[in-house]
Every structure is written in C-alpha cells, then in structure tokens.
C-alpha cells in the first residue's frame, strides 16, 4: 500500500519534472515574435539605406563591431568578462560569417531581443535591453543599411573562450525574462515631441544607460528609463566612472545648459569638460554625427531628470587658493606637471583644456576616472575628420603611484573640490588593470 502510494507520488513528480523541463526548454529557445515575420525584403530605397546608416551612427554599432583599421562591422572587439573573453561578431551582409542570411525578422529578433536565428541567446554585452526601444521604422532602416550599405566581409567570428558549462547560452533567456524589457518605446503623452524624441534616443539607440546607469548584481542596468531613480545616475565601468547625466549639481549635468550639452555632444567639448575615457569613442563614432534637432532633444530630455542632493553632496563653489607649489608633493607635482594646461587656478583653458576646479572627476567619490586619465592619458578627439590639437598625456611612465595619488588628492580637495583623497594602492591597482600587458584586465568591457 505504502509502496504503491510512493510509486504514484514518484510518478507524478517525474511527470512534473518532465513538464517543467519541457516548458523550460521551450522558454529558453523560444523565438520572440517579430512584426516583420512574413516580410521578405531584398532591395531597398537609397533613402531608407541612408536613414539606416544614421540609425547605426546613433546606435554606435561600430564601437563594438569594428576594429580600427579593419573593415567596418566585421567584428572582433574583445570584451573581457569575469568568465572569459567574448568577441563582437561580424555583422556585415556576408552570408557565411556575417548576417547576410538573416531575414528582417531574424535581424529584428537579434537587435531588439538578443535572440539569433535558431533561438541562440546573445550575451547582453549587446545592448538589446536598450535597443528593444527602437521603433519598427528604425529597425527596418537599420536592416536596409546593413544589407545594402555595408560591404560584406568574409571574416570568421572568434569563438569565446568561456569554458563549458559556463558558455551555455540558454540561462540568458531566464536573465532576459527578469531584466530585459520587451516593449518598444511608447511616447509619454504628458511631454512634448522634443522631449519624447530625446527619451527615445537616450533610452533606445543611444543606449546611454549601458555606461551611465549603475548595474545590479546580475549586471543588469538598475533602471532603463526615467521611472527609476538610478537611471543614468552614474556608474563605474571599465576603469572609468561614467558620471551622472541627471541634474546633479556636482557629479551630473546640473551646471550645464541645454546648449552646452548640445555643444559637448557635437564638438566633444564645452566650458565644463572635454570628452575622455570611453566617451571619446562614443563621440568620435556617434554623437558628433547626430542631427542638431536630435542633440537638442537629448539635451531637453536629460535636463528633465532630477538630481539627488543626498548622493551628490553640497553644491560645489569655486574657492581660490594661494599658490604655494612647494607646500607638499601633490601641490608641487600639480604645479610642475599639470598647471601649464589646467592652470594654477584649476580653471583650465575652456573650451580647449578642461577646468579641474568643479570637474566631475574631482567631485565624485569614485576616483577611477581621475586615476585612469592620469595614468593613461586621453585618446584623440576627432571632429569631422580632424584630430584636435590638445590631449592629456599619459603619466604612467613618469609618475609613481604615490605621486599620482598625491597630485590627485590635491586636485580633488582644492578649489572647492570635494572628491577627497586618492589612495596609493588604488592607483597601483588601476595601473595593473590598465597595463596593456596585464593578465588581470579590466572586467567586462561593455558599451
């Protein structure tokens, strides 16, 4: 009797497991729906192709899917994750290695939902949780551009070196279920067209949050639109601190006018700052190509995101200091190494060499950006094909960890700056992680 009951219970359990496993298998290989299911487009109007090229610019596809000096969109950028390296793929219309065999619906599923043909899940290094906001017209234009405006490259993809079983892709479907939204951008009727256009670009194609929104334990962005306070509130990533894009007075855009935001995205510089770190690539490849109306829309939207005085600290105000270069190692190093460009008064030479007085990197608690740029310098800012005349040199070989820590401590506690002290060990650590020959490179290169 007991045995029979046991057998029956066990039977039910097995059945339940089978059903659950079946459901799971279905769920994790499921092809999300696409509005383009039955459409097969093979040739496109030139206007649509060039519209798609613009969408690709705004989405900055090239940042990951191209290597400098190599054929555009042929893939190859290595991204180090905690589990191993993955490589951006070939997205040229090559039929063998690229996406030449993708239908419009396949393309849509990859871009907006992170699902490749056959149900294979993409790693969320591809910012599909943002691209899902793209509207149908832009997806179609993007497809037209990649099919007809890009040269096919017969270049094989590099397999990831993440070991089995960690390289199984199906768990990503579960991650998506929890963290990746499924809806395209829906206009907010309470706001005007400019604001909505800005929201669309920032949340969707621009995927600003990929760098500027803090991530949770599962590497998920903590918010994907203005309904969440962490949205664009600043985040540490790749050894840089991507500052807040909200109205934070110190660490955000509180002191920037809409015109200054436009100027920054269009020319790479304004009276407050010059692009550096990962933003240089975003500028070189993407924001400078945006149309003026789109930049204005971005500025309008960003100016609508409130700051958080509690997180941001008391509002920065310039404080003059007497110049006594010999007072300590930090001040001395500043006077000899930094002041020629940034000024003994810390005010820089706007808009060419940025002020350090009131700079985000000198006000934020996170000191990664200050350390990183001092160690490694800045990359060329290239506007309309012309490199700019000034760049931050790398001091990696010239200054010791202690000298860098001291000079940054000086910068971050002078002229009203309140970022505070920089630890010598923190400099040493970042020096190791950003050494080109490092065996412990910066974790998760996500853009």
């Amino acid at each position: 009797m007991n045995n029979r009951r046991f057998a029956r219970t066990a039977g039910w359990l097995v059945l339940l497991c089978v059903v659950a496993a079946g459901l799971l298998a279905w769920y994790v290989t499921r092809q999300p729906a696409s509005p383009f299911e039955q459409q097969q487009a093979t040739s496109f109007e030139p206007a649509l192709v060039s519209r798609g090229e613009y969408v690709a610019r705004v989405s900055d596809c090239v940042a990951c899917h191209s290597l400098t000096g190599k054929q555009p969109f042929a893939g190859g950028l290595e991204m180090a994750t905690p589990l191993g390296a993955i490589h951006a793929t070939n997205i040229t219309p090559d039929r063998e290695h690229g996406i030449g065999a993708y239908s419009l619906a396949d393309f849509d599923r990859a871009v907006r939902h992170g699902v490749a043909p056959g149900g294979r899940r993409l790693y969320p290094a591809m910012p599909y949780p943002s691209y899902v906001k793209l509207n149908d017209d832009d997806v179609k234009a993007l497809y037209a551009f990649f099919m007809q405006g890009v040269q096919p490259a017969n270049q094989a993809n590099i397999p990831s070196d993440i070991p089995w079983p960690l390289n199984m892709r199906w768990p990503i479907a579960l991650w998506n279920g929890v963290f990746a939204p499924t809806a395209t951008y829906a206009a907010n009727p309470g706001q005007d067209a400019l604001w909505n256009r800005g929201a669309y670009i920032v949340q969707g194609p621009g995927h600003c949050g990929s760098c500027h929104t803090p991530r949770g334990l599962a590497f998920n962005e903590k918010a994907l639109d203005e309904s969440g306070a962490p949205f664009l509130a600043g985040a540490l990533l790749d050894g840089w601190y991507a500052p807040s894009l909200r109205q934070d007075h110190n660490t955000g855009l509180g002191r920037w006018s809409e015109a200054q935001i436009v100027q920054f995205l269009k020319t790479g510089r304004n009276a407050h700052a010059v692009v550096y770190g990962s933003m240089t690539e975003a500028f070189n490849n993407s924001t400078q190509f945006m149309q003026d109306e789109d930049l204005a829309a971005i500025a309008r939207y960003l100016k609508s995101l409130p700051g958080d005085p509690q997180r941001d600290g008391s509002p920065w105000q310039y404080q003059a200091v007497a110049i006594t270069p010999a007072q300590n190692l930090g001040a001395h190093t500043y006077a000899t190494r930094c002041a020629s460009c940034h000024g003994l008064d810390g005010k820089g030479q706007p808009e060419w060499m940025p002020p350090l007085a009131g700079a985000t990197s000198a006000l934020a608690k996170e000191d990664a950006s200050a350390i990183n740029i001092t160690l490694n310098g800045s990359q060329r800012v290239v506007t309309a094909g012309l490199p700019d005349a000034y760049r931050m040199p790398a001091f990696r070989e010239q200054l010791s960890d202690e000298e860098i820590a001291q000079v940054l401590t000086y910068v971050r506690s002078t002229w009203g700056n309140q970022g505070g002290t920089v630890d010598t060990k923190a400099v040493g650590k970042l020096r190791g992680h950003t050494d080109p020959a490092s065996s412990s490179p910066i974790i998760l290169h996500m853009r």
Partner: protein
Amino acid sequence: MELRINQKAYQVDAEADTPLLWVIRDNLGLTGTKYGCGLAQCGACSVLVDGNVVRSCVTPVAGVVGREITTIEAIEEDEVGKRVVATWVERQVAQCGYCQSGQVMAATALLKHTPAPTAEQINAAMINLCRCGTYNAIQSAMQDLAKQESV
C-alpha cells in the same frame, strides 16, 4: 585676429584652437621658440604672456589675443631678460642649445616675480627638460642671478 608679440602687432589668420607655438613659428617665422614634445612636458616652447611663463604648445591662440607676448627674440629688450642672457653666456650654460630658449624664458619669469629666489623656489620654477643635461650649469647661473639681486 591680432596678436601683440614683442611690442609689435601682428595680423594672424588661424583657427581659434591653433597652438600659439605654431602661430609663432609657422605663421610668423619667429623660430627661436622651439618645439619639443607638444604636450606641455618639456618647456622648450616657453614664452612669456603678460610676464608669466606659458608653454605655447598648449596655449590656444584665441586665449592670448589682447595680451602681451614675449619670445626669445626680444628677451634682451627686457631688463631682467638681458641679465639672464648675460649670465647664461658667462656660465656657458648652453650645450646644443635646443632647450635654452625655453630655459631663459622660465628663468626670466621667475626673476621678474621673485628677484632673489631661494634654492627651493629655483627648483620649483626651473623644471624644463634638457636632454644635454645642463642642469648644473643652469643651477649655477640661477644662483648668480639670485645673488646679484640680493646684494
């Protein structure tokens, strides 16, 4: 734009962000000011702007319009500059000479603000690089100059 260099007015046609060094050397042919690194690291390009030493390779030309620029070509017209050059000759400071225009500028700027600098002040101000290693000769010359004034 109009620049005032060595008491003369020059009409210059250049982009606002052009480094002053290029305007001085290429547009105006005043080649006494040297290009070393272009990154504010060596000081070879030092000139005076309103009596302060600046590194012209990192000085956007738009920022010095309306200000008084002095280059090595006219340094001996300046009272202090003249003494610096004389002492430089006396101490035979120069080797190849490439960095020396910048060194003289740095020395002149220091002595204009601080006629009798201490050893510490000299060290803090004379930070230009010299690949010939004339640092000791520069030190001696600076000590002479500091003494001249304190006597």
